[in-house]
Structures are given as C-alpha cells and as structure tokens.
C-alpha cells in the first residue's frame, strides 16, 4: 500500500485533528507556556519570567515533601493493589457457585465516583462517629482504633487504602482475563509430569500472564502518581502537609494561592516524572514477557 497523503486522507483525519488540537494539544502547550510566566490566573496580562518558576521548584521545601509523599503513595498503591488483585483473580479463576456475584462485588467500587468513595470512607473512619473504630473497639481491638485520617503518620496510607479498595476490582478483571487465556493443555501436560499446584502457578501461570502485569502496573502507577480527587476529598492534603502529593500541591498553588504559573511548572515536572517512570517501567516489564 502506498503511503501518499491525499486531500481525502487529510480531510478524513481533519475532524479528529481539530478536536484534539483544540481540546488537548492547545491546552497542553499553553500549560508549558504558562509555566514560564508569573500569571496569577486572574490578570489579563501575562508576564514572561523564563525559568524562574523551575528554579524556585528546586529549593521549595513543599515540593520535596510532596514528591516524597507521591513516591510513598504510588509505591504503596501499586504494590498492594496488584498483589491483592492477583490473589483475588487466582481465587476467582477456580470454579465455585457464587463466582459471578463475588466478581461483581469486587468490581462495583470501580463504578463509583472517587468523591462518593472518599466521603463515605472518611465518615466510616471518623474517630467519634465512624463505624470502623466502633467495630474495632467492640471486638476488643481498641488499640487499633486510630485517627485514620487525622494522624499524619498513617493518613497517607489510609487514603492509599481507599484508592486500592476502589481500583482493585479493575486490576483483578485484567488479571482474570489473562488467566483465562492460558491454554488448558499446558496444565494437563504439567499434571502428567507430576507438577505441584505451586509449581504450575510459578512456571506456567505467572510467566504467561506477564502482559497483564505490564499493563496493570503501568495503569496503577500512572493513576497513583496523578491521584488527586480522593486525597482532596478526604484530607485536602492535610493534616498539615502529611498527604500533600504533587497533584494536590499544584492545585493549591494554581487555585488557592493564585499562582497559576508556578502551578503549571509543577504540572510540567509531574508530567516529566510520569513519562520517565512509565517508559522505564514499560521497557523492563516488556523484556520479561513470554510469548507462546
């Protein structure tokens, strides 16, 4: 097939190109531009200040705290969510009566908005009114009845827990799909060779579902690094700076402190970080995939 660009091909792609340009390309590029200005989000004039925002970023204590929180949050959600999802998928891959129902139940949180999930969980976790601590105290685990969102040492993990609760069904479904595509004959042949169930999992199942790992880890990683709504609804980045991630910081700078330019600079840095981490991660995981 010849690759000559005709009027018709151009005309056919034009609608998509126009939409993408207006709603994606233009905002993204203008974001880069605003990161080089001191715009406050209100004025009609915009002052160009070169790389000053980026230089300020390097010495901003809030940025380093937020970066650390982002890393902790991302690592926690990515690892825990994928582990739980994998275990759930392995269990649900078996045959039992309520399988469809259980699968649906784990998937339901995915369909809820993070605002709803966040509000509901912050009520459940409240130290005075919440069900969780009442339940824990009721069964004698009073020492576990913590101030889940008010204690700066655990607040970030509490929010990570909510995020995992919400998204684990999504990862599970992807693992499940991969599991069901592993050919039955391989297991049969392993059975003939006398392989133990553990051996079958390690040598057949896991290598063959490696592409699911790649996509799942990538999705969780990117999602966690950008996570904003859940944190904003439950703690607003607090108490103090305890759950302030880069996404929350950029919002606070751009919209609360009226520093749109600085906020845009943080957004650009966050974008760069996500891009780099995803590329590296993709390359490493791709090498481990096996093909039949």
């Amino acid at each position, binding site marked *: 097939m010849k690759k000559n660009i*005709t*009027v*018709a091909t151009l*005309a*056919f792609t*034009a*609608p998509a190109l*126009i*939409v993408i340009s*207006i709603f994606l390309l233009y905002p993204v590029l203008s974001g880069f531009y605003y990161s080089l200005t*001191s715009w*406050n*989000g*209100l*004025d*009609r004039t915009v002052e160009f200040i070169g790389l000053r925002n980026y230089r300020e970023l390097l010495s901003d204590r809030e940025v380093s705290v937020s970066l650390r929180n982002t890393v902790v949050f991302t690592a926690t959600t990515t690892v825990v969510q994928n582990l739980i999802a994998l275990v759930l998928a392995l269990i649900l891959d078996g045959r039992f009566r309520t399988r469809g129902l259980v699968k649906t139940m784990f998937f339901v949180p995915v369909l809820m908005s993070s605002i709803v999930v966040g509000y509901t969980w*912050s009520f459940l*976790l*409240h*130290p*005075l*009114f919440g069900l969780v601590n009442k339940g824990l105290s009721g069964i004698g685990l009073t020492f576990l009845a913590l*101030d*889940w*969102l*008010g*204690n*700066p040492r655990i607040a970030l993990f509490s929010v990570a827990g909510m995020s995992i609760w919400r998204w684990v069904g999504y990862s599970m479904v992807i693992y499940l799909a991969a599991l069901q595509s592993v050919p039955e004959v391989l297991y049969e042949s392993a059975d003939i060779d006398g392989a133990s169930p553990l051996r079958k999992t390690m040598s057949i199942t896991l290598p063959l579902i490696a592409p699911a790992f790649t996509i799942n880890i990538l999705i969780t990683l990117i999602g966690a690094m950008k996570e904003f709504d859940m944190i904003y609804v439950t*703690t*607003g*980045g*607090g*108490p*103090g*700076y*305890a759950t302030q991630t880069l996404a929350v910081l950029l919002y*606070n700078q751009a*919209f*609360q*402190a*009226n*520093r749109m330019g600085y906020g845009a600079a943080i957004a650009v840095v966050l974008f760069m970080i996500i891009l780099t981490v995803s590329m590296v991660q993709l390359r490493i995981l791709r090498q481990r995939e096996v093909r039949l």
Partner: protein
Amino acid sequence: MKRQTLFVLALILIVPVAAFAGGAGESEPVEDEPVVLDMYHWFGPEMRETIEEINGRFTAETGIEVSYESAPTDQYRNVIKIKLASGDAPDIFGVFPGTEVVEFSDAGHLANLSGQGFMDRVMEGATVVTRGSDGDVYALPLDQNVIGVVYNRAIFNEVGLDVPTSWDEFLSACRDLKDAGYYPLALGNADLWVTQLIPYAMASIIYKEIPNFDAEMYAGERSFNGPEWRAVMEAYMELQDREFFHPGVLSTTYDQTIQLMALEQAAMVVNGNWIIAGIREANPDLDLGMFPFPSVEAGETAWISGAVGIAMGAFADSENLDAAMQYLEFWTRPEIISDYLMAKKAFSTIKGVSVDFDPAAGEIGGYLAETNTYPFPDQNWPSGVQDVFLKGYQAVFAGEMTIPEMLQSVDDEWAARTAQ
C-alpha cells in the same frame, strides 16, 4: 468510490466539528426576551429559599429574572476564578472581602460602585474591606459577622458555670465541663478554614496592644514568628494539650462540630455567628448563647474579631450591567436586607437597619456595643499567606511542626509574596 465523493464525505464530517469549534458566538439579545441576570454565590443551602424569595420580589418589581446558583465556599473560590479568567463570568457574584476585592478589581473584573447612589445607605466602616487599591468601592458588603464562643446554656447551668470573662476562668470552665463528661470545645480542623477561627478569636491579644500589627508587618517591623503570634499559638495548643477538644479534631469537619453541639456532646464551639443557624436547624430546642473569646487577664475586656463576611459585586464586562446595578440597589433596601439578615442570622451593614435575629447573637451583640472590634486578620494579608497559615495550624496539631517553625514558614511566605 471516486476521489470527489470521498472529499464530499470528508467535508460533511468536518462541518459539524467546525461549527462546534467556533460555536461560542455571541448571539444578539432579542428585544422582547426578558433580561436574565446570572448570579453565583457561596450562600449555603440553608439560604437558598430566602435568596430565591428575594429574587422573586426583584423580578416582580422590575421584570428582570435572576438565575441563581451556589457552591460550597472552598469550591466557589476556585470556580469563580476560572469563570472570570475564561471571560464567562456571572453578572452578579460573591466576593470575599479584603484582599480578593483588591485582586479582582485590579484585574478589571469588578464594576466600580463608588458613584452609585445606593452606596450612601451602606455603613462607611463596612466598605473598608470592599475597596480596591484605588480606594473606590467594588463590592456591596451584605452582612457582618463576629467570631466568638457559642455555648449551650443548659449545660452551663447544669455544671454551674457563669460566662467566663478571662483566660483563667475560661480554662477552669473547660476543666469543669470535661469533669462533667462533656467535650468542652468542638473543633472541626479537618476543614482548613476552621483551623484559623480560635486564633482569630484570640487575636485581641495582638490587636489590642498593637492595632496596626498588619501595617507594621508590611513595613517589615514585625514578624509572625514573634512574641505576639507565639502567645496566640501557645494558648491554642494549651487547649489541645489539656484535651479540652474531643479526639480526632483533625478528621472532624465543620458539619460534624454542628452535630456535636446539636447532640449536646460538646458544650462550646468557637466559630462565627453563622454557626448558630446551623446548630438550631439540627436541634431547634437548644438554649444557645454567644460570648467573646476571653483571651484577657481578669478585669480586662476582650476585643471581638468581627468583619464583613459576605459581599457581592457586579461583573464589569457584563452585558446587563444596568440590570446588575438595579439588583444591587434592591439589596440595600431595608425591607430586603432585613429579611436576608433574619435568615442569615448576621449583623447589618446598612445604616439604620438592626435585626433581632437570634437571642444567642443578641448576647454577643450586647458585648459588641461595649467593646472594640478588629477585622479577621487575613483580610489584610497578601494572598497565599493565609493558605500557609491554615496548613500550619494543621501541621502543629499533627505534631509535624513546632510553633516557631510554623510561624517562620508564614513569615517566609509573606516575604516571598510581598517581594513580587
């Protein structure tokens, strides 16, 4: 298929998209259509009925319709900025008194109200925080609020307490309430804006001694990390250290403090007089009172932190500016503003209007007549400073920052913001 046919097909696909892209065109106003004013504000849901009733009376008189929308405070703050920046602003919108009026008017978003006749009806003092950098008035102040201690009289009687008038009496009242099994104070520090209210209520420590504290901050003669604000913060933390709040203040919201008061689990809450309406709605049977936060030695009178709470302005580039001005004028009429103040349970900014809206507020109103007030401190600060303060209160409560560290971070922000 021939190339021409393809081309035509492609054109068909493009047309709707192009129309969509350029579609935000300004349609000419049709003569006979009634003027509709878009109004956007952060009035709470408890005010909706009153606002719509006032709007209805305005429509009945002028034929101008008002389409009213509201959003919670924190959300409103952001959405209005986006609306203004995108040029898609409502004709009438709420403005936070103080710094924001200056910023919005400097950016050319607010219509100048100084020449308007109805501004003569407004108390001079109330417009201090609705003026732009040029000294002209850019927003109509609608009500005044005070910060103080709202308390449950029945609980006070049961424990045998009088209204405390000094810091020592306040601490001993808290101790007695705690011994009687109540949470002495409800505090909703999960909501950032709540964290600042006790310090503001106590700030008469600062402003009574140094009335020009903020002006001296601008002149570089004072710092937050000095004896004055440290005293305020240490008193705040003393209440926390002696467990006069309930557990989990950092995960408790404003709404939940209303709940604690309504359920009579907490005896007092430090907040603006607006909280009275919320508590009464949750439990109409309570006998509530309100007194000034007694952050003074015995024998002295505490000042009260009071300020214009809500203001409203008109969009400078509005197509319906005349109608918007008519609307603002409507609000300055005694019969309209009284209805609003009754529902809002707030004090008047219009000359000659006084509203007996609530016995609890009436109590602090009595103190108001005898003492001095100072504005909410942040109304004079550069933008960004308050945000660092709010984060700082939480961080100190969470034990992540010490008081000097926190106040230093605010000083740093002040320096950075005023240097620009």
